[in-house]
């Protein structure tokens, strides 16, 4: 089974390489705590789309805003 947590962290830190993946807490908000800006979020959504073929509508952005939320979201939205 795909490790969505690791994959998400990899895409996240590729967009924001200033973030050390080992220090990211599961419930840290990517904008409020990790300081991504809205362009970063857009790029993250595109990277996840490219990697998993998953379409994340704008209304679902809050559902990928932390590692914990995103892992759950990807688990349920990426076709296995």
């Amino acid at each position, binding site marked *: 089974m795909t490790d969505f947590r690791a994959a998400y962290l990899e895409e996240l830190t590729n967009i924001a390489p*200033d973030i050390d993946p080992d220090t990211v807490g599961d419930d840290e908000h990517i904008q409020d705590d990790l300081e991504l800006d809205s362009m970063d979020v857009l790029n993250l959504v595109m990277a996840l789309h490219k990697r998993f073929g998953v379409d994340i509508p704008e209304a679902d952005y809050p559902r990928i805003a932390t590692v914990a939320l995103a892992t759950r979201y990807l688990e349920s939205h990426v076709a296995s």
Partner: protein
Amino acid sequence: MQTDSPNALSRAKGSRPEMSHPDSVEAERWRMAAELVDGFDDGLNICHEALDRHVENGHGDQAALRWLGKSGETRDLSYADMRALAARFANVLTAHGLQPGDAVFGLMGRVPELYAGALGTLKAGMVFTPLFSAFGPEPIRTRMEIGSATALITTASIYKRKIAAWRDELKSLKLVLILGDEAPEGCVALGPALGAAAPEFDTVHTAPEDPALIHFTSGTTGKPKGAVHVHNAVLYHAFSGRHALDLTPGTIYWCTADPGWVTGTSYGIIAPLVNRVTMIVDEAEFDLDRWYGTIQRERVEVWYSAPTAIRMMMRTGAEAARPYDFSSLRFLASVGEPLNPEAVTWSAKVFGKPFHDNWWQTETGGIMIANQPGMEVRPGSMGKPMPGIEAGIIDRAEDGTLTELGDGQVGELALRPGWPSMMRAYLHEQARYDKCFVDGWYLSGDLAMRDADGYFWFVGRADDLIKTSGHLIGPFEVESALIEHEAVAEAGVIGVPDETAGEVVKAYVTLNPGHEPSAELERALRGHARKALGPAVAPREIVFRETLPKTRSGKIMRRLLKARELGLPEGDISTLETDES
């Protein structure tokens, strides 16, 4: 303004660089603006116009600011509350020995204390500089050094991450105020300090030409420039708020810009309060449903936003907007970069009103050219000059002489100086300031065209500055941060087109011996730049080159990098000495 106005106005023009109109014409021209402010018998203070006078005139109970917290909480502050909070700020600053003229910097998210802190600073006759809280430590330090910051209002988290390491090296800095009830060592907690301070403070009777605000803006070369604005600017804030944005007393108004940028101060604090509107302030970043929900729930009437956000809404489509009621909206405006025609048409369809694009700069202090209320909107155009503003399209010859161009010709957008919110100086940079004014024109650095009907159309920047998500970024600042990395020998930074952000920052770098291009190094460099500069300024993409195109004098030719990136003609490359490889 009453009887004191002609006096205030005539004093106001003393230090202006080049006047194109005799005093009487100018006074007459801004009479309409002066009627929107009260002034003192012996001066003018933005805070008095924004808060004090409304309370004195019986509007103390009206909501000045409705704050929407990130977690869904709301906090309402009436004009009386805001005046009291600003007064407490003024008392705290004064009690710590600060004097009129001292420089107070604000560096935090959109919380009521930031707004009250800005107004309290002005109330005390001090000079306020907002900084964008997502800046990294380097842009913050550079700007606080240039501005000789005396005090800083910030949060514990920002202080620890971005300030503490170098705080002691900034000798001018006497006071650091920290939001909340606790503060790190050497700082003062705002909660108890404001609580203990008196809610009354006699607003300092500043002269119209006393500095009030300093906004930093990027330069193509060298350090950022601190554009100095004076209290008299409030005439134009009042006037343009009324006539470009339709801000009338009682209007429910939402400016989505952060006060860290000039729009978020001129039209996110001053113009709305001077016009006695109720401001919506959202602490959170862009979130589609939150934004649509805010307009519906708060019954927003006037909405001032930016192309990047509008394009993000467009990406989602009209469907996502359908469940919401936008019938409260009366006027929509956009600024920061040109709004594409599709976005204008789309907004008219989805919101029932089109976004009205307008144009101005940090230096102009207020909206200069606009699709004004009641005017036919030309999608893709920035509109027509505001009443009292004279704009032209100029060609600069090799020898420096200017020629005014006719309709349909592309040239540099220029303005006749003299309106009240024009910058009065670049801090400590007289020569750079003087260069902006030639033959009675202020030269904007933007290329534009005027059509036969008098509408102006943005074409591009005349220099190398990058416009990303509405923010102006100087390539030099980004290049400087990159070459601080041990692997980087040289860097050239340009803006490349992006359908959402307008442009995004892209860097070309050459490496020092012992370093090889790799995906890991690219990531490491982006990480380094983000740490130093913050995400809004750091490059989103870095590419490696063996050499960069340079002139004989060793200057990197950004223009050539950009032309090649865009597949455009390379233009005059006679000064090219070393080409890119």
